[in-house]
């Protein structure tokens, strides 16, 4: 219960401090819209020359693009300011303050901050999803929507766990500070349906760095064409990775030598 109250306090603080910079807020939202428009134009250029991209039609590809944007919003709002910031805190020596707090360190390190304006990407992404569904004259069934949300949650947990493990690894290899950038590089590959990739590349993007789970599979779920096996694997993977990352994180902070002894 106390953790829920803490969450409320954290988020109210973040929101208030952001609204102070209203112009910046608007400029940021504008840029999000710009990049979404950019992505849509790119797909439009592709579809000047084809009817299907990796077996997906124009509105279907738009859905993957929308999910890419939506999930970027999730990453930038929740993941980057928290898990992504741990390394900077370690370097600055401020991570000790996290460990000293009377609540679980992973909880604070993971949920302390929220960059509210980044949620605009989630909103814009959802908007594009609605548009794409309208183009398909498709109204998803409650079951499909539920599965979609489940896939999205699974994707969030998968990425969160992956980042947590990378951060935990960086306690030993402090010079690995651009690992999040490396992740973003793989994430770029999720812009369009994963079916455009062939052979080895598609295998890597599905099983090694599971980008397929992040943008393509939730889209498939909403379109009602996800294989139940895939959905199951998503959830299993998310759960498994969460447990492993939690264990690894605890192991890492136990062996953490603080800035002052």
């Amino acid at each position, binding site marked *: 219960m106390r953790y829920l109250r803490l969450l409320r306090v954290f988020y109210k603080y973040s929101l208030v401090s952001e609204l102070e910079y209203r112009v*910046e807020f608007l*400029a*940021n939202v*504008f*840029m999000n819209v*710009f*990049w979404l428009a*950019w992505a849509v*134009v*790119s797909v439009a*250029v*592709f579809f*000047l*020359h*084809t009817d299907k*991209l*990796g077996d997906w039609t124009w509105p279907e590809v738009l859905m993957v693009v929308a999910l890419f944007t939506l999930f970027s919003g999730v990453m930038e709002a929740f993941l980057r300011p928290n898990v992504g910031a741990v390394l900077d805190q370690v370097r600055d020596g401020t991570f000790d303050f996290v460990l000293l707090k009377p609540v679980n360190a992973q909880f604070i390190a993971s949920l302390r901050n929220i960059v509210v304006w980044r949620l605009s990407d989630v909103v814009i992404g959802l908007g594009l999803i609605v548009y794409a569904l309208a183009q398909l004259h498709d109204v998803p069934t409650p079951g499909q929507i539920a599965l979609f949300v489940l896939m999205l949650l699974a994707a969030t947990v998968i990425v969160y766990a992956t980042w947590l493990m990378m951060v935990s690894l960086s306690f030993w290899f402090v*010079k690995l500070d*651009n690992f999040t*950038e*490396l992740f*973003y*590089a*793989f994430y*770029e*590959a999720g*812009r*369009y349906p994963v*079916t*455009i*990739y*062939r052979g080895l*590349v598609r295998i890597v993007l599905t099983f090694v760095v599971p980008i397929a789970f992040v943008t393509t599979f939730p889209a498939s779920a909403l379109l009602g064409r996800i294989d139940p096996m895939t959905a199951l694997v998503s959830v299993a993977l998310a759960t498994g990775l969460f447990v492993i990352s939690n264990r690894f994180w605890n192991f890492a902070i136990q062996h953490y030598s603080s800035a002052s002894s």
Partner: protein
Amino acid sequence: MFKKYLALLRQSLAALFEYRANMLIWMLINVMPLVMLAVWFSMSEGGPIAGYTQSDFVSYYLLLALVQQMTTVWVIYELDYEIRHGDLSIKLLHPLNPLHDYLATNLADKILRPFALIPLALLAWMIFPTIHYDIAPLNVILFVVALAGAWFIRFIAQYIFGLLAFWVSDSMTLNDIWYGLSQMLGGMIAPLTLFPSNVTAIANWLPFRFMLSFPVEIASGRLTRADLAMGIAAMLFWVGVGIVVYRWVWRRGIRRFSAFGA
């Protein structure tokens, strides 16, 4: 002047060499050309698209990735930081215009890059043996000229946006928009000829083409002599515009900066 440049270069090279692992990671991070290649590769499986076969697309995007790597610029982040934190004042005390310091840093990086790029290029050639370029000597020279032009335009444009930090708090946003446009109209999303013809006609004269696509177009051997001539002329025009605008912005900016009694 040349000796000062050599000194700056040597300093920058030493500093950059320390971060070579980081540099490699930054280089590998640039996957956009590969993603776009995957798209067009899959689309052209059934046959060529607007005169581009699968092999043509591979040739195009691999070289585009290389051009992108050889023209990367990040000076706006340095400038933004230094203007905001007043560090620029220190640079202004030096006898050389700070521009040269930033130029030297970037050039040093470009000197180091081929050492990483050449093995990657050879690897790409082994994986895709059908890639092909027009390597007639004159064409190679023009390619290098266009590459230098691309680097310069990218640099001076970012530098100008960076200098806007003297006036606005959000020069980065403007630079992002510029970057977005250059990715779209500079040949990243698709070779420029694959746009609708009226869009291509306009894009051919915009600076974005000369920041990325033009060197690749030259290497592809698809440009006629007239195209080449007009292209080089347009590129030189934009280089000139860059220099003029930079000078104008710098003069006004430095006045304003000094007025704050830094």
